[in-house]
C-alpha cells in the first residue's frame, strides 16, 4: 500500500532563515505531487504541483520554491522566511490515471517568529 511521509512534523524558525520541508511517497511510481498551505482556521491553498522529476508548476507567487529531485520526493524551500509563511504545510499525491484521488501526508506545522 502507499504511504506518504512529511518531516519535520513541527518547526519554529526565525524570520529571514532558510526553510526545507520534505515529502516522500512509498508504494507507487510516477505520482503527481502537491504542496498546500493552510493558514490558521482557513482552507487549503495549492502552492505547487509536479507531474514528474524536475517539473514544477507554481500556483501562487511567493518567496517559496519547490523541487522534485527524485520520482517520489518533493521538497519545499525558502531562502528567507517571512512571518506570513507561518502555517500548516501539507503534501499530497495522486496517481496519473483518470482516477486521481488525492491522499495527504500528516503535515508540517511551521511557525515563523
Amino acid at each position, binding site marked *: 500500500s502507499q504511504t506518504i511521509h512529511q518531516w519535520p512534523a513541527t518547526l519554529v524558525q526565525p524570520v529571514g532563515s532558510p526553510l526545507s520541508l520534505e515529502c516522500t511517497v512509498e508504494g507507487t511510481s510516477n505520482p503527481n505531487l502537491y504542496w498546500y498551505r493552510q493558514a490558521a482556521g482557513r482552507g*487549503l491553498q495549492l502552492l505547487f504541483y509536479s507531474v514528474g522529476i524536475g517539473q514544477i508548476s507554481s500556483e501562487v507567487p511567493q518567496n517559496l520554491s519547490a523541487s522534485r529531485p527524485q520520482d517520489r520526493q518533493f521538497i519545499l524551500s525558502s531562502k528567507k522566511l517571512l512571518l506570513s509563511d507561518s502555517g500548516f504545510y501539507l503534501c499530497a499525491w495522486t496517481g496519473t490515471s483518470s482516477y486521481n484521488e*488525492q491522499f*495527504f501526508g500528516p503535515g508540517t506545522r511551521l511557525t515563523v517568529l
Partner: protein
Amino acid sequence: GIQVEQSPPDLILQEGANSTLRCNFSDSVNNLQWFHQNPWGQLINLFYIPSGTKQNGRLSATTVATERYSLLYISSSQTTDSGVYFCAVGGYNYGQNFVFGPGTRLSVLP
C-alpha cells in the same frame, strides 16, 4: 478559475442528530472528494465521488455533476465527527489542479 463554495460555514449538533453539508462548484469537474480534517490536522479521505452516490457506514455522499453540487450526509452524529469537512474539486479544464472549498466546521456536542 473554478470557484468552490461550502455551506453552512459552521454547524453545531447534538450527538445523534443528522446533518447535510453542501458543496457548490462553478464549472464542470471530473474529480470531487470529501475530506474530514481532524483536530490534529490530518486530512482523512471520506469519498471520491465525481458523480453518483456512495455510502460508508453513517456517511453518504451524492454528487449531481450536471447541477454542479455535492452533498455529504452524516447520520447519527458522534463527537468524533467533529472537525472541518472540506470539498475539493478538479476540472477538465484545470489539468492536475485541485481547488478546495473553505470548509464546514462541525461541532458535535455530547
